[in-house]
């Protein structure tokens, strides 16, 4: 992708200040920066407990130049529903309300409120930046943690047993108008999806993989490489699904071995070659399922 094309697609104005408190190499502020570029200043952010509760800065500061409401862990979708209702009741139908939650606040503790809001087709965009564990509390497993990973609650002697929850299928089952996966390594694809979501009414869900150097045990400068590799090797395919039935891939996914992706992350360093093959089998099987969804619409 040439620089010229990126400039055409990605607005120059930034609504994330440089003084944020993310760890070096964190994908979460990159994702927020791109999303706010796509949405612009007529945006309100609901922030349930997650790494971003810290990244945004302590009182009386804020790294965001849009209104921000910090809220309890499981309430992102419910508070966003209420803010939107409040705005509409006062005649404001143009401000975009977003909920910005981590994987814990989305896949686990916030799933009930998210499901309720999605079923009601509340008019907001729900973003999940997914670093695949409870990173803010010190790397505990969530239902987004991949099979075989080390975390502080899945030690290497007994690593994560379960495959990552299929949150996209869950959201698609709500038949919301728009759901997508996105990656910080594909900024144009991400921004285009956010811009598209902004034009749609109803509940929109965007799931962004967010590599985490301290939690994944990777180098700070590997974040974009790993995010790109996750897409290319089909670990985290980039997709859209509209109205729960129309699935499509939005970039090319050449495939190939997941071994390098896994071996570059020390959270997987205890895995045997055989166990890496198991992950490969899981990725291949899931790719087939997703390809069938694209082909047959379910």
């Amino acid at each position, binding site marked *: 992708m040439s620089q010229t094309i990126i400039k055409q697609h990605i607005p120059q104005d930034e609504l994330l200040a440089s003084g944020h408190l993310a760890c070096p190499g964190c994908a979460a502020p990159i994702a927020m920066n791109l999303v706010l570029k796509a949405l612009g200043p007529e945006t309100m952010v609901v922030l349930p407990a997650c790494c971003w509760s810290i990244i945004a800065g302590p009182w009386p*500061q804020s790294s965001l130049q849009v209104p921000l409401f*910090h*809220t*309890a862990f499981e*309430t992102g979708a419910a*508070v966003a529903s*209420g*803010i939107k209702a*409040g705005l509409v009741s006062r005649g404001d139908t143009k401000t975009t309300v977003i909920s910005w939650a981590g994987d814990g606040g989305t896949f686990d503790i916030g799933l009930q*409120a998210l499901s309720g809001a999605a079923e009601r087709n509340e008019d907001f965009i729900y973003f999940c930046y997914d670093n695949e564990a409870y990173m803010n509390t010190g790397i505990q497993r969530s239902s987004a943690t991949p099979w075989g990973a080390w975390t502080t609650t899945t030690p290497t002697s007994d690593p994560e047993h379960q495959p990552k929850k299929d949150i996209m299928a869950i959201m698609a089952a709500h038949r919301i108008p728009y759901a997508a996966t996105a990656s910080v390594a594909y900024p144009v694809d991400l921004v285009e999806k956010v811009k598209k979501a902004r034009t749609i009414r109803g509940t929109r869900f965007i799931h962004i993989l967010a590599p985490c150097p301290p939690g994944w045990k990777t180098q700070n400068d590997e974040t974009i490489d790993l995010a790109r590799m996750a897409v290319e090797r089909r670990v985290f395919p980039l997709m859209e699904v509209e109205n729960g039935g129309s699935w499509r891939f939005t970039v090319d996914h050449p495939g190939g071995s997941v071994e390098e992706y896994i071996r570059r992350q020390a959270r997987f360093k205890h895995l045997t070659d055989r166990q890496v093959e198991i992950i490969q089998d899981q990725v291949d099987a899931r790719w087939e399922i997703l390809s069938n969804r694209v082909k047959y619409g379910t």
Partner: protein
Amino acid sequence: MKKVMIGNHAVSWGALRSRVEVISAYPITPQTQIVEALSDMVADGSLPAQYIKVESEHSAMAACIGGSIAGTRTFTATSAQGLALMHEMLHWAAGGRLPVVMANVNRAMAPGWTIWTDQNDSLSQRDTGWIQLYCETNQEVFDTTIQSFKLAETVNLPVMLVLDAFYLSHTSEPVDVTEQEDVDRFLPKREAAFKMDTSDPRAFGALVRPDAYTEMRWQQQEAMLEARDVFRRVEDDWEAITGRRYGAVETYRTEDADLLLVTSGTITSTARHVVDERRAAGEKVGLIKVKMFRPFPTDELRELLGGVDRVAVLDRNISPGHGGIFAEEIRAALYDVPPEDRPNLFGYILGLGGRDVTPAVIDDIIDNTRSTARPEREDLWVGVEL
């Protein structure tokens, strides 16, 4: 306009007259008729509000918080288990200084499963930072609903108005429904002191370090204490329009009384009847009704109870391991009364899980309070049969 209505519908009519803008609710007996009636009002256009039919009480309060930080007047209603589920967000509304108003229909907590009244659900939320107002009649429920918005929006704190399950919620009484233009004069559209605003972007509820957290709680406490005076002014304004007022504390035939009953909620009405009978028989018995539980009307109760010989506090609640909650709070308030003026205080536990408190029960309490030199224990349980 006078209408005969159940207590639950008195709440709905109060919310209608208050022109609530965002309603978010989840069904639970015995509250449900409140939000059912509001559904009809929104559906037929008489109440142009946004109504969010959430999947839980936790989300009901979270959505009210969202509506409130967007600058609008927000309302919900619940009972018992639903209130308990909201607990985390009750702190969020109060700490966030958001004037959400909620009706709680007092229902006892499970297990065992029960839908009947007692006060343990709302009193368990004592320290969440909500103003709590307990009602005796359906008229008071209607009036208090409207007053609650004015009080909440003046001090930037949430208000819980409380009514007894079934004794009020499902019982019909005549209610004088104040005309809309009169309510509009009393309660104009909400002008939020702060809100989400893209032209003035701010962060709300961020991490606060130890150097500032105490100051935030101090400001919250100051607002709570200010609510005592503000409630008086709110009642002045309401009385000027309707002729009705209740008081944070109401006295009934307390002049020269040597024995005072202290009640809240519908037990008060029964106690009024008993006091009338005792007065007719020449006994110096009076009644104090406590409407406002938070902020606690400490000064009024010290003034009214200091120097009285005997006080019987009727608690439809129990703090296990301590005693009746009103009785314990009143004992604490009376500590600063000179020892010679401190009344002999009897704390009765009764009416739990909806058990009827009849005039005969209150008669027994008066007789026991008169004939016993000192209470045997802090919690005197009424009618326990094992």
